[in-house]
């Protein structure tokens, strides 16, 4: 059966050990985690975990059920599909020799991202958008030489009904 990418978002108790329960469930049952983001919500007692996984249909059904079964998972939603806003951020440290500096800045301006740190031979660029945009951006920078990269993994929120 075909594997598809699923983006799951869940509200969990903001307590020590909760992340470990979620991650442990994936490792114990042989599911994979492609990316994972955790931070508190507006309610300090609750955190939001956003997790991307690849799974076929029976697998994703089990994953969702198993996650819901965890006592600390308050709410879970599959945000795959179009009804959700999805964003990811990356910090990219790219080599910027004098001959490349203008080209890098041109790409930065095309992608409407920004330079957040600069040195004699590098820029650190902050880019956000959907996953495809970030991948495209990284591909364009590759020829200049990417020194380091840090990506957040996907974040998503369900679009409120109008």
């Amino acid at each position, binding site marked *: 059966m075909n594997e598809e990418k699923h983006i799951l978002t869940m509200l969990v108790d903001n307590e020590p*050990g909760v992340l470990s329960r979620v991650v442990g469930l994936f490792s114990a049952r042989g599911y994979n985690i492609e990316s994972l983001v955790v931070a508190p919500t507006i309610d300090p007692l609750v955190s939001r975990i956003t997790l991307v996984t690849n799974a076929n249909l029976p697998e994703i059904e089990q994953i969702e059920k198993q996650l819901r079964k965890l006592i600390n998972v308050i709410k879970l939603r599959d945000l795959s599909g179009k009804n959700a806003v999805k964003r990811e951020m990356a910090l990219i440290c790219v080599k910027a020799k004098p001959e490349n500096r203008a080209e890098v800045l041109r790409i930065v301006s095309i992608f409407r991202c920004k330079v957040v740190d600069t040195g004699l031979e590098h820029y650190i660029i902050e880019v956000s958008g959907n996953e495809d945009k970030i991948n495209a951006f990284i591909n364009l920078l590759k020829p200049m030489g990417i020194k380091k990269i840090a990506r957040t993994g996907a974040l998503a929120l369900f679009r409120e009904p109008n």
Partner: protein
Amino acid sequence: MELTGAQILIKVFEEEKVDTIFGFPGGMVIDIYDKLEDTSIKHILVRHEQGAVHAADGYARASGKVGVCLVTSGPGATNTVTGIASAHMDSIPLVVITGQVPTHLIGNDAFQEVDIVGITRSCTKHNFLVKDVKDLAKVVKEAFYLARTGRPGPVLIDIPKNVSNTKAPYEAGQQVSIKSYNPTYKPNMKQLRKVVNLIDSAERPVIFAGGGIILSGAAKALTTFARTMQIPVTGSLMGLGGFPGSDPLWLGMIGMHGTYRANMSTSFCDLLIGIGVRFDDRVTGKTDAFASQAKIVHVDIDPTSIRKNVPVTIPIVGDCRSTLESLNTLIKPLDKTTLADKRKPWMDQVQKWKEQNTLAYKQTDTIKPQYVVETLYELTRGEAIITTEVGQNQMWAAQYYHFDKPNHFITSGGLGCMGFGFPAAIGAQIARPDKTVVDVAGDGSIQMNIQEMATALQYQLPVKIVILNNGYLGMVRQWQELFYDKRYASTCMNCGPDFVKLAEAYGALGLRATKPEEVIPVLEKGLSSPGTVIMDFVVAKEECVYPMVPAGAPITEMLLA
């Protein structure tokens, strides 16, 4: 009212009507033990912490209450892990209290420190580390609530020493509410109506009953349902006793060592109603071939059990008892003769399979283990609580002791944990002092927790141990005989001990039978003696459990005796 953590813990125990705790003391729980002296709660001092958990498990299964254990940090805690994992697999409600080093030492590799919450995260229903005595009462309340509601399971609470010996205000009778935890008890009626329609149109229905029937107290409702609709019933190992073993509708146990008729009926039915089961691999064999002609209805309180192993036509999330009771109000039974006519072709077929008596065995001049269990069944009139170890002894107990009532068969089904039966029998005997409790054991597995003899003697528990002694780790030997060219690698244990002398060393009665004609006298004497008894039956060394489905094969492919 200001109380210490230890006192608060005991107050909540009293609120939860705990009457017995199984445990073993140590430095980090010494404050709790000290306060326990002031209560009427009975403490059973085991000889190994694994025994405490198995005993609490047996107690829980025999009584239907939550079993409680108390152990110290470090090795005390790690020794509980096997018992917890077994209870987790079989959905048995336990609350396990472990001591922990004081909070300021946690993470410092202190003496007898271990991250037991981390270790048991995947084998408990939930677990807690209590860092502030102010949270203790609430946590303990929640632990009991989680353990016994929904799909039951073990819950562990790790209590640092400075939490049990400092004071906090205590308020009795706090209500538990966990916003993320709301198990579904009532089934969806629309789904149930679909089931009723399926039953109406089915020609070859079978009910497959599991441990959920026992745990939810659904045996009566199941019996009514099956008898009203005249549907034959098979059971998983955990489901034995959920439907009367003496009823003509009973097919026997299903699966790897299931009866011929149960495996055939399931494989050729057109409607399989699974209730409180999880379609374990020991039941289904090759899943693609399992009940391949059937529409499957699956009732379970745990949504994750549904569609985990087999595809399901109608999933129903709900408590087994509540579901069966609702189903009983919806079914429109035909009058007796019409129903009998409708079922006749199927019942005739089932009867044909039944006539293939695959549990028959040949008597020889050595004792057959099957004969011991069968005789035990007759002498106890099927009324005893039977616990088992794991392996051949477990399967023979399941096959030849025909359980009529729930909560009478206590075995480590999911984890398959050798050393389970004897401590579980201790727990069961404490829960049911009125009952004859017998541990059906092998000579291998009884040695895994034999130290609990001292516990049985200390509390004068009349537990009877029946050892089917073949000098082998019999089930593994059986696999080696059948699938590994009889290379008996590390399965031979023919060096004793002398179990009669061992019993005597502990101050118990030891009896031995070496010939078939000695079986009845030994069982009669052992069962009628007042104290703990070991009965050592020297049985046919290379007897196999049949029928047997090789692992991964369809359950129609049975090796027969």
